């Protein structure tokens, strides 16, 4: 359940990152169908291409900034794929683009947040089963508990999936949420992507005790540490945790150990806090390659690389379509600044809106 104690020597000169797991995903005896495996692969490849495209769009000045997820595809796709999309609901922060891909969220609408058209994105959160993008780390975690409690009160089978990272694990809201979820036995799964770096701060300066999963014991709920670059492990662990929650077994915590291969954001410079060598080592633990190698060996995909080529082509199309969509996405109307503040605008807000309109019309 918990990891062995980490290097506690705070003066250690290396970053003491965990050893990158490079072995292929173990498909031996899995009950997960080849169709699902191929879908997991496809979603990861889509996410990779969309991610690269988003970085390119930032470099070209279309996006003011972007937060790449490269390296974390398995943790996101594996967990989101385990959701029941008719009843469950996911609560992301701002790096969960691969979750959005897996849930079939409209990518132009999703990227609208990074395109700086609308904070939270322009996709339909209700239909997508994905809450609006949230920029407060840890902030949406108690929302997931409230949502799950609401489902429980309604007697509906919905479960909430709360995403957060190793940095957010230090936030009080995350602790409050976990405690509440356990007290209420709410159907919620806490999915921590431990990508080892909270911007520039490594786990050893962030996570006392070395394990986030181990904290679950303190709340009396199961805690699972899982290889976050093994999409099958993440998928089956999340599936089991959701099934447990759905059957009234209460909340669980999953710590998916992964690695953020890219910068925190396109404004970040990883050279100031970690070595290129470590990044190279982790690049060899690529979750997409690890699944593909296993699928080839198991005969889940043809040996001639045609499946990978086909998926790659589709992913490129998806990325190109996203690019085309965000480039022509209209800027938000100023009227919309005022529209969604209240259900009924106040007199004062209407007055300010009129003043704004006059200014624009004169301008």
């Amino acid at each position, binding site marked *: 359940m918990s990891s062995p104690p980490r290097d506690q020597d705070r003066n250690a000169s290396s970053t003491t990152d965990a050893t990158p797991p490079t072995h292929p995903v173990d498909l031996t005896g899995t009950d997960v169908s080849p169709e699902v495996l191929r879908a997991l692969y496809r979603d990861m490849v889509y996410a990779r291409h969309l991610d690269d495209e988003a970085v390119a769009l930032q470099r070209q000045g279309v996006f003011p900034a972007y937060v790449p997820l490269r390296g974390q595809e398995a943790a996101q796709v594996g967990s989101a794929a385990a959701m029941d999309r008719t009843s469950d*609901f996911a609560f992301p922060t701002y790096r969960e683009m691969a979750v959005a891909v897996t849930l079939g969220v409209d990518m132009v609408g999703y990227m609208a947040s990074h395109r700086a058209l*609308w*904070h*939270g994105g*322009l996709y*339909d*959160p*209700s239909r997508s089963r994905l*809450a*609006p993008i*949230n920029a*407060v780390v840890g*902030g*949406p*975690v*108690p*929302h*997931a*508990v*409230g*949502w*799950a*409690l*609401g*489902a429980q*009160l*309604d007697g509906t089978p919905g479960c*909430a999936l709360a995403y957060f990272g190793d940095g957010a694990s230090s936030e*009080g*809201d995350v602790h*409050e*949420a976990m*405690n*509440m979820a356990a*007290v209420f036995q709410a159907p919620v799964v806490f999915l921590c992507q431990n990508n080892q770096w909270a911007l520039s701060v490594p786990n050893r300066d962030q996570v006392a005790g070395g394990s986030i999963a181990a904290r679950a014991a303190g709340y009396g709920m199961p805690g699972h540490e899982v290889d976050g670059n093994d999409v099958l492990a993440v998928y089956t662990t999340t599936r089991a945790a959701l099934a447990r929650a759905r059957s009234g077994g209460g909340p669980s915590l999953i710590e998916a150990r992964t690695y953020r291969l890219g910068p925190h954001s396109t404004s970040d410079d990883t050279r100031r806090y970690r070595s290129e060598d470590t990044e190279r080592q982790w690049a060899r633990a690529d979750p997409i390659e690890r699944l593909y190698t296993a699928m080839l060996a198991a005969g889940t995909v043809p040996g001639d690389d045609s499946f990978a080529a086909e998926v790659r082509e589709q992913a490129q199309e998806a990325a190109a379509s996203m690019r085309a969509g965000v480039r022509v996405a209209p800027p938000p109307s100023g009227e*919309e600044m005022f*529209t*969604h*503040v*209240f*259900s009924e605008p*106040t*007199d*004062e807000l209407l007055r300010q809106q009129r003043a704004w309109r006059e200014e624009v019309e004169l301008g």
Partner: protein
Amino acid sequence: MSQLLHADSGQGPGTAVSASASASASRRPEAHHEGPDLRQALNAALDRALTEDPRTLVLGEDVGRLGGVFRVTAGLQERHGHHRVFDTPLAESGIMGLCVGLAMQGWRPIPELQFDGFAYPAVDQIVNQLARMRYRSRGAFPMPVTLRLPSFGGIQAPEHHGESLESLFAHVPGLNVVAPSTPAEAYTLLLQSVRCDDPVIFLEPKARYWDREQIQLPPPDSTQELDAAPLGTSRVARPGRHATLVCWGSMVRTCLEVAELAAEDGVDLEVLDLRWLKPLDTAGLAASVARTGRAVVVHEAPLTAGLGAEVSARLMERCFGELRAPVQRVSGFDVPYPAGPLEHQYLPTLDRILLAVQHTLEF
């Protein structure tokens, strides 16, 4: 204009003011010994809200079995069940985050945070999440959450139990803020708040919890239409001709006492109970000042950037021509809320308010 204040006294200004202060204790408006107190009115409103709308929930620290530290929720859990009225762990931020998630599930939560000063740990969830979720989701997730917050000072409570947070919350886009002053007002305003589809910060004047009023509260299953002015409307608690005292919450009774004292000196003060601090009734304020030409704003909160500043600015913008004197402000001081014996020196005293009245009349 001092003759207005002292027209019938024949005394100098200073004498009149000190004389009035010594008499203050015995000259309160007639105390009602029958009828419900403000807590009972709130309880009846909650009872009715829970009865008329199966999506309403009452939650918070000690609101269930105990019925709240002020007993405002007494008996509600027995009448409406543990699923509708329940205790939460002691975690203010978590409680408000829970309510955001519950509202996303279509519930209508009525949380209580036990004391004003303990809303501070929840400010992130209130400001960054509750107030913005409708906006962020472009109306997909309305936030019909009424936060009940026992507020203001006057009961010699410990530190952090006497705060006035109205200007803090009124400053936040997306929040409504209201403070009732009497049992009848408390009943109506609370039901109105719960029925509102947007967040309402409901500031309960804890020093007035035990004030009684000879009113008949409707039964919980009443279908009688609520006799309420539109949200954001102030009320003239006492009509007058010479100056307007602008106040809310516990200061309304104080201002009525001031008006009685001033009346003995032939000064006819209007007392305008703002009720809603956001949206602010600019039209009601302007109408009152059009009648009186003078305004004194009275609040418990510290002076600097208090709501009195906003009221004063609105009056200047809206009815500068009708103002016959600068708007006066009587408030607490720019100090942390003091302990017991100093409390009544900190809070606006009858003397301090009368002095401000005198200043505005003499201008």
